[in-house]
């Protein structure tokens, strides 16, 4: 019976199947996903973008600096988590990923599909947080919707960089330490990521201004500032795009190496 006329399925079709699997699983968990990734930034908005300005502790202008940063935090947090956490489960004790590793496609396509999912979830998080933040904070003078394309570009690039970081973290760190990793790596990254203050402001502490440049979040936050509030001080968009492309490439190179080491004994 083994047929001689065997036409292998196309790689694109299999990629579609892998994507459908993740969409199926993600859709079911979407509410939890949104709570996990957007609640903290939104609470931040309530306190620093709404309460403190009304109390007079921070200037009304602070909102304009805060909003792009909050978008950056939400999208990076969701991208990094939506790749790293499934990886931990997939490579856990029972190695659930085995059934996908048997798919007749190059192994790195399986990892690449996870990145695509990570970018998608970053986009969703940004799309949810932006209008809600604007709603809570009220009108922001400098905010403009005129540069939708740069906003989209920065969102995708930032989500890509952090999805790849998630791939690296999810495969390189042993599962018992993933929680620790989020506190030790992700939390400082958020606080020193120029999300809650513009990079320009670090002029006050020059050593810090250059030290934070190793932090990928800085570029996403500054890129968001450049795209959402172009009238306010921000890093050049060209520098931001360049840095994010380089970081994405770096994290992909390290991440895929780590993935393949885990996937193949």
């Amino acid at each position, binding site marked *: *019976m083994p047929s001689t006329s065997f036409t292998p399925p196309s790689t694109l079709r299999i990629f579609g199947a892998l994507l459908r699997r993740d969409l199926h699983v993600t859709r079911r968990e979407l509410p939890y996903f949104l709570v996990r990734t957007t609640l903290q930034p939104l609470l931040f908005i309530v306190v620093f973008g709404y309460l403190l300005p009304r109390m007079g502790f921070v200037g009304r202008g602070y909102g304009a600096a805060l909003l792009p940063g909050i978008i950056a935090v939400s999208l990076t947090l969701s991208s990094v988590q939506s790749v790293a956490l499934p990886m931990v489960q997939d490579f856990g004790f029972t190695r659930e990923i085995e059934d996908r590793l*048997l798919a007749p496609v190059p192994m790195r396509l399986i990892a690449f599909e996870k990145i695509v999912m990570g970018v998608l979830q970053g986009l969703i998080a940004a799309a949810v947080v932006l209008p809600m933040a604007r709603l809570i904070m009220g009108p922001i003078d400098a905010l403009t919707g005129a540069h939708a394309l740069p906003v989209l570009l920065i969102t995708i690039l930032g989500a890509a960089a952090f999805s790849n970081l998630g791939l690296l973290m999810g495969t390189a760190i042993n599962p018992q330490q993933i929680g620790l990793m989020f506190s030790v790596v992700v939390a400082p990254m958020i606080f020193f990521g120029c999300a809650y203050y513009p990079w320009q402001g670090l002029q006050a502490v020059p050593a810090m201004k250059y030290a934070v440049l190793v932090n990928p979040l800085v570029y996403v936050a500054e890129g968001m500032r450049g795209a959402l509030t172009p009238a306010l001080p921000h890093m050049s968009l060209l520098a931001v795009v360049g840095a994010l492309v380089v970081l994405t490439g770096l994290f992909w190179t390290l991440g895929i190496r780590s993935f393949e080491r885990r996937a193949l004994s």
Partner: protein
Amino acid sequence: MPDTPDAIRTAALRKVYPAPGARRGAEQRPDIVALVGLDLTVGGGEFFGLLGPNGAGKTTTIGILTTRVKPTSGAASVAGADVVTNEVAVRQRIGVVPQRPNPDRSLNVRENLVFHAAYFGVARSVAARRAAALLDQLGIGDRGDAKVDQLSGGQQQRLMIARALIHEPRVIFLDEPTVGLDPQARHALWDILRELHAQGRTIIMTTHYMEEADRLCERLAIMDQGRLLALDTPQQLKTRAPGGTLVELVLDGDATAAASRARELAGVSSAEPQGSVLRVYADRGGELIPALIRTAGLEGRDVRDIHLSPPSLETLFISLTGRKLD
């Protein structure tokens, strides 16, 4: 052997796993050599069995052939496609039942099958139909909507079998597929495998059950410590089982001295001590028992237990590997 379309070949296949916990500064433990130059050819459409004690290298062999383990050196191919340089072509042709169930726990039972089929390009409607049929055949037709965590161990194993077959692969690997299955499920699997074999598919199965290997497989390889010890049809292997019946005596102490004495008895073709166990191969089997008990007594040993096995794959396996299968 002429090259048949779905044949499997390995040549000088070697696999070395790095020592566990290898770390700089730590005490250097030796690497684990799981396969020592394995040469194996399985014809297309053949039903092939792989036997060996724990740690023999069976799972490693299957891992390499299914592109899930990287060989250290040597070559292996499935249906003419090299497992390292042409892994995608290999994966297009194979279905795999792993030794340890690894279902996708984010999906329910039916989704596990339908999505796995989709990874091989099978349309959803076709996959759904096949999934229902396979689940029925394996006796879990009513568990399609269950979460996999709600399945018992044996039911998960059945799901793994269904998953390996859902995309109708031409070459099927099963790593101890009947472990944990009740007799009914085991017979259902045997029926399925016989049918797949009749359709001309290549089947490679590892097992610890001699009866199963004897009944199903056309040829058997017996391996131990990463080496091939014997390879032939079950019939031929049985004739190679050493002289007659195996008589095992469990003594109350070391069996070495009793073994040397037993060798002198008429009709004994060999007698080997292993700790307190004395293994004797004899033409007449049972008739020799009183003489063996006396012999042990002369060395001051009491016999605690006696076990007789007629010539079989089991006795051959023990004589080759020095170990029992269970």
